[in-house]
């Protein structure tokens, strides 16, 4: 309750929350909100500027840009959720066990994570896509995999701190098994950093997925995906700037929303900042 109250007081976080809420509504009702079928094309209507007929104009095949941007919300949010969930699912157990047990396995995993983190994340994602081939699902897999090292790190550092606390000691004293201790006592206490990280990673996931799409490695045509649209639009930027503007604005807004919320959540969840907000 505390946290929510503090979050609500955090004005920028509130803005972020509303933005994300708006995107969620759009994603849920994209077919109802779209004036046209996002795949319906008509070459004669190509690259039309915004007008009453096509509110955001059309793309190079004469498809309605508004409908495509609205449907793109669905694709981008789904990609973000799936890849963050994947990163979380891959990274958390590894980080928790590595931190809890320590010793040689810990050193080994951490050096492995060092190697992975030495690559910029997007490069790692490109590498994964290069191996698996382009496409929507492979993009999610690639982004998810490249998120995992960060989760390993964050979870491990929390576990290192928590495992020394008295309640863990107490649990051990009454004979609770290690696995149960990790599950029941340690992981729930890592929740705060994980929530913050995941919110911020949502923003990254949208950006990376769009980046892969921009490079032609992400969602494949005719899927309406913001990054892919932006990539296609660059050939026409001089004659049809609206084509680049709207998918670009959608990406920027969604990323901004998650970043603002993530920042707010971090402030709200940080005990050291308690009372200052």
């Amino acid at each position: 309750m505390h946290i929510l109250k503090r979050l609500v007081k955090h004005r920028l976080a509130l803005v972020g929350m509303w933005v994300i809420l708006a995107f969620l509504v759009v994603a849920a009702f994209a077919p109802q909100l779209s004036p046209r079928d996002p795949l319906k094309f008509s070459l004669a209507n190509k690259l039309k500027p915004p007008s009453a007929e096509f509110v955001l104009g059309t793309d190079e095949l004469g498809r309605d840009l508004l409908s495509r941007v609205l449907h793109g919300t669905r694709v981008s949010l789904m990609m973000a959720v799936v890849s963050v969930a994947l990163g979380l699912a891959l990274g958390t157990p590894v980080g928790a066990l590595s931190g809890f047990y320590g010793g040689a396995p810990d050193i080994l995993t951490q050096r492995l994570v060092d190697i992975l983190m030495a690559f910029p994340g997007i490069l790692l994602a490109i590498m994964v896509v290069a191996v698996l081939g382009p496409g929507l699902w492979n993009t999610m897999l690639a982004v998810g995999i490249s998120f995992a090292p960060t989760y390993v790190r964050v979870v491990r550092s929390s576990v290192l701190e928590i495992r020394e606390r008295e309640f863990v000691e107490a649990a051990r004293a009454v004979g609770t098994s290690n696995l149960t201790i990790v599950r029941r006592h340690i992981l729930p206490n890592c929740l705060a950093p994980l929530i913050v990280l995941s919110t911020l990673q949502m923003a990254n996931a949208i950006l990376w997925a769009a980046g892969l799409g921009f490079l032609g490695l992400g969602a494949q045509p005719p899927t309406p995906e913001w990054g892919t649209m932006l990539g296609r639009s660059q050939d026409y930027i001089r004659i049809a700037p609206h084509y680049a503007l709207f998918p670009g604005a959608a990406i920027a807004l969604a990323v901004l929303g998650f970043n603002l919320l993530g920042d707010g959540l971090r402030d709200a969840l940080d005990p050291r900042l308690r009372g200052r907000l």
Partner: protein
Amino acid sequence: MTRKTLLLACVLLVGLGAWAAPKPGGEMVIGFGTDPESLDPNKITSAPAGMVLTHIAETLLLMTEDLKVAPLLVENWTISEDGLNVLLYVRKGVVFHDGAPLNAEAVKVNLERFRKSTYAFLLFPRVNTIDVVDEYTVRLNLDKPFAPLIAHLTHNFVAIVSPKQIAELPEGKDIAEPVGTGPFKFDKWVRGDYVRIVRNDNYWGEKPYLDSVVFKVVPSDATRLVLLETGQIHAMMRVPPLDAPRVAATKGLELLQIPSVRTIYIAFNYQKAPFTDVRVRQAINYAVDKEAIVKEILGGVGGVSDAAIMPLVFGHSPQEPYKYDPEKAKSLLADAGFPKGFKCTLYHPTGRYMKDAAVAEAVQAYLLEVGIEAQLITMEWAAYLAFLRKPVNEATFDMFMLGWGCVTLDADYGLFALFHTSEWAPVGSNRSFYSNPTVDSLLELGRVAPDPTSRKAIYASALKTLWEDAGWLYLHYEGQLNAQRTVAKGLIHHPREYILAHKAWLDQ
């Protein structure tokens, strides 16, 4: 008064003369989209590579920009009555960049080396043996008459390099820095960035004005245009068609529309169901609105294909178009047993041909309307060509997009390599594994037929069969949309998709 006028006229003439006289010196930069895959005449397979090579290593005969065969390293030729012996009279007084003289022996060495080339079919196996008759005469001995031979000798891949270079080349190595007889000498090649050539002061013909020429590789059409507008390059290939009006209206820039001999098509895997069914192939031809693609995506540059070769090529005859008719396509698909369509893959290059990715996406959208769900897959150019060079039992594609420039302007070159059964990949360029006995025998006949009239009739019937058989999804033939800065003078924009700097100069 009269004398004054005369004087004025003289001054004006002199002034004009001085203004129009080519100025020597300077470096011209030409922007193009694809890095050459090689500069070894035996290894090159694409127009961009041919464009660079032809400045350095010349051919025996020349295809001029108005598409006529003219002498070059061979001054004259005669063909025997039975068509089995061709005498080539080599130009005298020509030396290679390394000082070696051009003579009959040098020509023979080059042609013999060409036997192992990717494009060996241009001469071989029809040419059995090559004889050196005297120092400047070469005789080609054929096993059968071969009508397109003279046209083939203009092909830029049959370029002549120094016999010294060939002799010194280690076994299994390719020529990296060609030594030819051309107006320019090879200087430097930074892969993926540029090729630089410098003036050959000992050129046998009219010497070039420029000190050097740089062929700059800029894959993105839009970026290349920006480089031209900001003056970083002097000329460019392939202006994005929708930008053309803006370029034409820009001061200091010239927009040029030149014909091309390239036909763009989507081929089927002819040996794989459902494309083995002629109804399916015809349905796909009816399903796609080629007129709209040419008008809206290509900005009207080029034209809708009415045969497997484009109208400028000898042997072309127009066929009844497959008019856009999705209903007819659906009923043909239903007849073939696919009332709900099917799923397939469509491979296409990105940035190799004019708006290739956008055309592929439009085709995908049209096919979806008749129920055919085509998955688009694009690849980098070199990987793409390698992917499409697999033998029939390893080929995994359903459809692919490719272009073929019929650069010899003879139907044989545009058809034999692409449709004859003996040319199946990986041996030749029949990458779709097309096979039709009627077409095979017609194409063979076209090669040995004695006179142009009968050849024309033979190709007319071959084209008709190919058309009715829907051997391809016939798309369009390209036009070239190039641009140059007004300071760039004397450049030749060739229908073979070359920009030639032989006689170019910079007015600055």
